[in-house]
């Protein structure tokens, strides 16, 4: 399953990637590509390594084998300064938001601008307000991160991720733990940003309904391999018991409900 690099259409291309933590193989020779300008979802149960995959794409951890090409650069062969230059064009939305807790909302969004540009203070102020307006939180600029609800924190983090106008955004579990209203807000924001700013988006998630509703293409990971891929329509009709169990959320199936154990009756009446 060798995917040829097509840098004109693909913003990220992962080839023959393997990665282990201790004895456990998190990825076993996987290849996938993320097209430009689209929303691509990577799904899988908790603990399959979705966050790990994003960290590999961002160059925070190194693979045991294989390569990750982002916008024509082999991430793990770059010099540190070049990697940092590349990262300025990759936004990442962490599961927890990862806002700095000792500065307020405004300063959090201003941080990448202050660190990486020489814009004047008034220019930075305008840019920050524009980004905060885009996520609907211009009025919350003076709040501290601990005064925000989970959904608001994630939106501030989103404003911060788009502060430098990146070419792509990676969303780590953007829907998890949101109330219905902020869920709807986030789904709409991801969609809007993708079409309005011409971004490429990678969504990592196990929330099926929301992900299926906005993704253009879906990869499903399981036990270090790609268990299925295709457009949402194709996935729904995929002929794989495991994928169907995952997509329908069935308790029992190829993934058993019970953690491996001895025979129940024997266990009960032992001793």
């Amino acid at each position, binding site marked *: 399953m060798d995917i040829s690099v097509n840098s004109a259409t693909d913003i990220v291309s992962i080839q023959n990637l393997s990665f282990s933590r201790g004895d456990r193989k998190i990825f076993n020779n996987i290849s996938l590509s993320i097209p430009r300008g689209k929303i691509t979802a990577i799904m899988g149960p908790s603990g399959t390594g979705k966050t790990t995959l994003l960290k590999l794409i961002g160059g*925070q951890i190194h693979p045991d084998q294989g390569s990750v090409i982002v916008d024509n650069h082999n991430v793990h062969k770059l010099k540190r300064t070049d990697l*940092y230059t590349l990262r300025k064009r990759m936004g990442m939305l962490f599961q927890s938001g*990862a*806002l700095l807790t000792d500065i307020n909302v405004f300063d959090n969004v201003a941080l990448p601008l202050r660190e990486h540009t020489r814009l004047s203070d008034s220019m930075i102020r305008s840019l920050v307000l524009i980004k905060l307006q885009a996520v609907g939180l211009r009025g919350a600029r003076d709040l501290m991160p601990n005064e925000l609800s989970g959904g608001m924190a994630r939106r501030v983090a989103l404003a911060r991720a788009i502060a430098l106008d990146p070419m792509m955004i990676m969303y780590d579990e953007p829907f998890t733990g949101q109330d219905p209203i902020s869920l709807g807000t986030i789904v709409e924001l991801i969609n809007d940003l993708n079409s309005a700013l011409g971004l490429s988006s990678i969504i990592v998630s196990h929330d099926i309904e929301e992900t299926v509703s906005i993704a253009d293409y879906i990869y499903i990971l399981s036990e270090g391999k790609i268990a299925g891929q295709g457009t949402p329509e194709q996935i729904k009709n995929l002929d794989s018991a495991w994928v169907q169990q995952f997509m329908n959320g069935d308790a029992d199936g190829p993934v058993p409900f019970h953690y491996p154990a001895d025979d129940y009756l024997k266990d009960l009446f032992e001793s």
Partner: protein
Amino acid sequence: MTQFFQRLGHSTLSSFAKLGRGSFFLMQILKATLSVIPRPRLLINQLYSVGVLSFLIISISGLFVGMVLGLQGFYILSDFGAEETLGMMVAASLVRELGPVVAALLFAGRAGSALTAEIGLMKATEQLSGMEMMAIDPIKRIIAPRLLAGFISMPLLAALFSAIGVLGGHMVGVGLLGVDDGSYWSQMQAGIDFQDDIINGIIKSIIFGFAVSWIALFEGYDAIPTSEGVSRATTRTVVNSAFTILGLDFILTALMFGDI
């Protein structure tokens, strides 16, 4: 038996590995210290939370230690009819030993543990990862200003401790026990040597401040990013700092005052 040696070997290896990571971490910080210069605000904020917020505990402890020294010193010295030299004794004990050592132990408990918990929680809440992904080096922006702040604050806090201790000794010795005020100060002036006592005391506290800040920051940075991991790292900071301070104190004292 083999199991014992296996475990011994394993823990030896992992402590060496940790020492290696710690040294590498220190090198990264030292390389990053210059980047603090264009961002003085970061340093000032840390000087406040590492240094200024330790003022109270250092002052109160200094006062009590000085008062005890005045009391104990008076009982011993008066046996020899030498209570006039109380000022000298109190000041020498403080400036040479107790100031740097006790202030550093308090600093490890007050500021070191706070640094470890702060950095560990920043790691657990992905703040450090988040900065890296924004192409901002957390070593430059978070770690280096804190190391510098610890390095600058420690000698000042130790000096504060000694100065208040001398006043505490005066309160007890002169105020309560009737030692002559003039001889308390003049004996001190005559007996304390600038080079031998004061400079050496300052050198000690600079080294302690550096060591404690390094240990605290490294334990936080190296912590397992869970609540349990951060809590263990905080404990390790206080314990390892105490050992390091006391061990270094012996070595430094031997080099400075002894003829070993």
